[in-house]
């Protein structure tokens, strides 16, 4: 089911090699299909080298749907107490994260995990930190919308109220009609999710200085960043094994790809019991599969825009990238004191690429320069992804 093999060929960004046995257990819900003749080809804005994302067969991309989704993404009417929108925890200026260690829901409940960046989510084989059952963005969106532990948007049981609110906003009627032209009453919860997912698929980041460098502009990044890229891609640090591909994460798929790559790794962040145990509050993939070997496994996230998406790790427990490199990866796992005490470096469950390495202060600076060169400034201010309500107040009836 989970197959992950990222084989590195040569020295440059890794290629995701076909895995031997990837069973796509789905019922065709993520099928990559030839474009429906009735639906015009979607004008993706893809950087050089980016493949076309897979799109669920029952939710083809349209400009109208993605635009509706953008309005919904930024609409606080999607939370029961109308204090939060999707964008509250996924802010464009922070590469669609929130700057917190732990996300905070609309009722004030603190999430055990850190809000993930939404850049390039269209390519992910599964969403969220550690849930292989959530293959699509449409599915994933049910968790923040409807989940009760923790409460995020808190709309469980209030879906009629949500739809009534949306109907009461005059500008939505034409937008829903344009997004779902075949439906007599397009105001449905699934259509809300479909539109939001369509917008999210347009959040594509691939125009960082490093992309310029990789595409031949040798002046796009500093010498330090260039040295950092060599360290990042090299065999001493081993970073690329989990943070490879154009997406800088291995768990990706796209149209025409024969198999979905999906990888969960124990990052040696905790070792509370000497057996590789993670704190009870969050044991990662284990909670879904209940397989002991999945203790502490999480999906390695993208490191695009990583300089603006701290704090770091699934629980926001490391404040700075320097700490991530020096006090976690370089020592082959983090040493934790206090309530979750334990030496991650000694975890029997840790991923095979978290072996630790020697690195000088100057080299750390180089890696940090490289990571900084992955910040896509255009993404952070792209008007096409910004809050449309701020740009244009609600239309009057």
């Amino acid at each position, binding site marked *: 089911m989970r197959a992950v093999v990222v084989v590195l060929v040569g020295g440059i960004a890794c290629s995701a090699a076909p895995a031997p046995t990837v069973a796509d257990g*789905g019922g065709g819900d993520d099928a990559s299909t030839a474009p429906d003749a009735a639906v015009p080809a979607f004008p993706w804005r893809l950087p050089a080298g980016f493949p076309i994302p897979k799109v669920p067969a029952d939710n083809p991309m349209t400009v109208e749907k993605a635009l509706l989704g953008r309005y919904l993404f930024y609409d606080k009417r999607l939370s029961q107490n109308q204090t939060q929108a999707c964008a509250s925890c996924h802010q464009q200026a922070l590469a669609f994260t929130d700057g917190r260690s732990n996300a905070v829901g609309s009722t004030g409940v603190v999430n055990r995990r850190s809000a993930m960046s939404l850049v390039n989510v269209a390519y992910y084989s599964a969403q969220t930190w550690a849930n292989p*059952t959530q293959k699509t963005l449409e599915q994933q969106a049910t968790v923040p919308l*409807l989940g009760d532990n923790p409460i995020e948007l808190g*709309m469980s*049981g209030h879906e009629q109220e949500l739809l009534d609110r949306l109907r009461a906003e005059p500008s939505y009627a034409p937008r829903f009609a344009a997004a779902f032209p075949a439906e007599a009453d397009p105001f449905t919860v699934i259509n809300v999710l479909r539109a939001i997912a369509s917008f999210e698929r347009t959040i594509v980041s691939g125009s960082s200085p490093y992309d310029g460098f990789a595409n031949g502009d040798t002046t796009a990044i500093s010498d330090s960043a260039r040295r950092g890229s060599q360290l990042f891609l090299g065999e001493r640090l081993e970073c690329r094994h989990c943070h490879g591909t154009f997406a800088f994460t291995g768990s990706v798929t796209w149209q025409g790809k024969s198999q979905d790559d999906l990888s969960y790794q124990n990052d040696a962040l905790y070792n509370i019991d000497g057996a590789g145990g993670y704190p*009870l509050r969050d044991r990662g993939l284990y909670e879904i*599969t209940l397989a002991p070997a999945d203790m502490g496994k999480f999906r390695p996230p993208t490191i695009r825009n990583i300089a603006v998406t701290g704090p770091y790790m699934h629980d926001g427990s490391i404040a700075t990238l320097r700490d991530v490199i020096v006090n976690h990866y370089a020592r082959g796992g983090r040493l934790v004191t206090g309530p979750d005490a334990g030496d991650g470096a000694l975890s029997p469950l840790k991923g095979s690429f978290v072996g630790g390495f020697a690195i000088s202060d100057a080299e750390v600076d180089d890696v940090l320069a490289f990571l900084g060169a992955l910040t896509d400034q255009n993404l952070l201010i792209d008007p096409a992804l910004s809050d449309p309500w701020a740009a244009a107040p609600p239309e009057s009836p």
Partner: protein
Amino acid sequence: MTSRTLFACLALLSGCGDGDSHSAPDAPTADAPAAPIAVTIPFAAQFGATPFVCGAPSPDVGSPAATYTATDLRLYIYDVKLIADDGREEKVALDPNPFQGNGVALLDFENGCGTDGTAELHTAITGTVAGGSYHRVAFTLGVPADQDHLDLATATAPLDVTGMYWAWLSGYKFLKLDGTVPAGAGVTPFFLHLGASGCPGDNFGGPPAAPCAYPNQVAYDLTGFDLVSKKIVLDLGAVLATVDLATNTPDTAPGCMSEPGDPECITVLPRLGVNGAANQMLFKIE
């Protein structure tokens, strides 16, 4: 179906139609084939002697005894059967209504006093069954495995109730009991959510690739029932009798959310019958 047909044939051959001397007064005279009858199977819920009332406090729940204010109680059941005195198992065909469909019934004891419920109640199953004399009732707590996956686009009643969605596991809560106990100036929540866990693969939009490690479905077979004077009582006080509702183990779900290792689940799950219905304390006939 097969056993029913067989029975009918035997009855015809033997002429046993009026030999059913154990018929309860409420049962029609046993003729073969028996005409279908309309049935109502009432349920009730209580904490000890205190009936479940949404939002009302119930004293002496758990150990040490606490005052538990329940704000939600809903559960799915399916495969409802009546077992006749002669051993025949007769499936109850559920009447279609907003709480019954897809072969599944949602029992709903809450009135909207909590966070995601509705005013409507549904505390009795209605349907039709072959006529007969019945003193046993059987049903399964849960949602059939091939339907235990969320699909907002296609779900119909009673599987379209988002308050019963278990979104993070892409399935349904089979049983949901929410409530609080006093804690200092505030309250501490204790939620009991039963659902399938450890389900392999991508079970969103389709059934799991293989059986779940913890299906957490329980088939009950209750004796001492009759269709005239009895009801099925959810004895919530018995289920929670040994758990300390006021003290949640740090860093675990508030209450028991089907995590086998959660200390708040260790006594509760067996009392629901998940390790064997013989030891269940959830349902009794009164």
